[in-house]
């Protein structure tokens, strides 16, 4: 599984969305992505990529795309 597939899998599993819902998906767009869902999402991403996210990044991860941008930073070095 490449990183993008891994990333998508986390979103799909935690937020219970389908492939076609991922693009453009934002925090609070769907009921599952509330603050509780966000915690689950962050934990799952940290597990999947074996990273520890910073506070600023956790609260900045407000969309599917933004998440990729954050994980791609040098701090985490996830290549998509």
């Amino acid at each position, binding site marked *: 599984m490449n990183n993008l597939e891994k990333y998508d899998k986390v979103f799909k599993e*935690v937020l*219970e969305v389908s492939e076609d819902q991922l693009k453009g998906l934002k*925090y609070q767009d769907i*009921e*599952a992505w*509330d*603050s*509780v*869902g*966000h*915690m*689950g999402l*962050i*934990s799952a991403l940290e597990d999947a990529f074996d990273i520890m996210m*910073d*506070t*600023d990044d*956790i*609260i*900045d991860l*407000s969309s599917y795309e933004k998440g990729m941008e954050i994980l791609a930073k040098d701090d985490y070095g996830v290549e998509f």
Partner: protein
Amino acid sequence: MGKIWDLKVHKRKKALIDEFGNWMTYDVLDHEACVLAHKIGHRCLVFALCRNEMGSVLGYTSFINNGIVPVMVNSHLDEVLLENLLKTYSPQFLWVPKDQKQQFSGMTTEHEAYGYVLLKTGYGTTYPLYEELGLLITTSGSTGSPKLVRQSYANVLDNARSIAEYLKLDDKERPITTLPMNYVYGLSIINSHFLVGATLLLTDKTLMQKEFWSFFKEAEASSFGGVPYTYEMLDKLRFYRMKLPSLRTMTQAGGKITPDLHEKFASYAAEQGRNFVVMYGAAEATSRMGYLPPEKAVEKKGSMGIPIPGGKFTLIDADGQEITDPLTTGELVYEGKNVTLGYAKRGEDLIKGDERNGRLETGDMAQFDADGFYYIVGRKKRFLKIYGNRVNLDEIDRLIKVEFGIEVASTGVDDHMYIFVTDEKVAGAVRDFVISKTKLNPVSFKVLVIDEIPKNDSGKTLYKELTKYYAE
């Protein structure tokens, strides 16, 4: 009935500031509240669809301060559940966010202010209201039960005074909203702070959003409240490292915080010269019943503290006798002026008077230590607290049984509910149904399929036997 707050004395002091940079002084709040009350014109029932926005607080202030009785519900409440509540209680008016107006076609707009509109329902039935009835609040569960807690003006005022006293609130306080205002804990923050002329910082953003923290810092929030799950989120955010110079007090209620988190936040507060105040309460006692004085937060880890000023705790054993020995478990009974009038289950109940006479059997099992500090050790009835909301497990079972006609047993621990069914084919549908009815986040519960729901000879479900499926 008198007014709860004398808003005018605080004059040009800011009562409300929102995340968009708008603000309202106490003068203006008082004036706008009077205008709105005037439009309604008489004591009657109003449904207030709450958000942490100016219009919402204005509505609540106007109603409670002018003898109009609000039913406080979340603006995101499921439409079907809301419809049921409206049918049950037949209010004369609704106070709703303007962007939800289309949900109520056929009703006429009587007034508009701060993003909210007053709608006249036109319902034929009007239920008489008991003269001391101040407001109605849903029992924190979100299962759509029509059961409301009846709170009197005296209840609200007494509890607000007590809270202001033990938290030593003054007009320099700037609490930021982290809880919905249709939830008694959130509402108690408004009630107690308006009493002292403090400034409320309003936002519907969550702790998981950058905008929340920007607003927190810019507006110099001095305190916030949180349910156990809030503190789990803060822990996850590594809150201890955040620079929040304006923060003075953190309160915790809405369920028992884990001893581990209690210790972390108590130590953090002690090191930083801040207050961490664990509290205990229920909608049936208006809001607060107990608090752990912040200077004892580290020493008395796991305790919810002592009774609030004006309140009294006793423990009652299975025979109804008072327990006098420390570290002995009994049902916690609270006495105080904030013990509410009782419940309403239908419109005809709104005329009912005080059914509790200042005494509440909490349904919580507790102990006290040699110093008189109380510890909650369990519950008498079957319910869980999920993210601070009470979820009645029997109610969940009932809802599922009615909808699907299947065998079901719900159980679990706080923040994690497990729903057992025997038919694999319906498991997914049960899950979706529970999400839609309760608005619980799917991560907070699981639907598990087992061969058979364990029962005893008389057909009673053996919930204890189910623990083996989820105990760690």
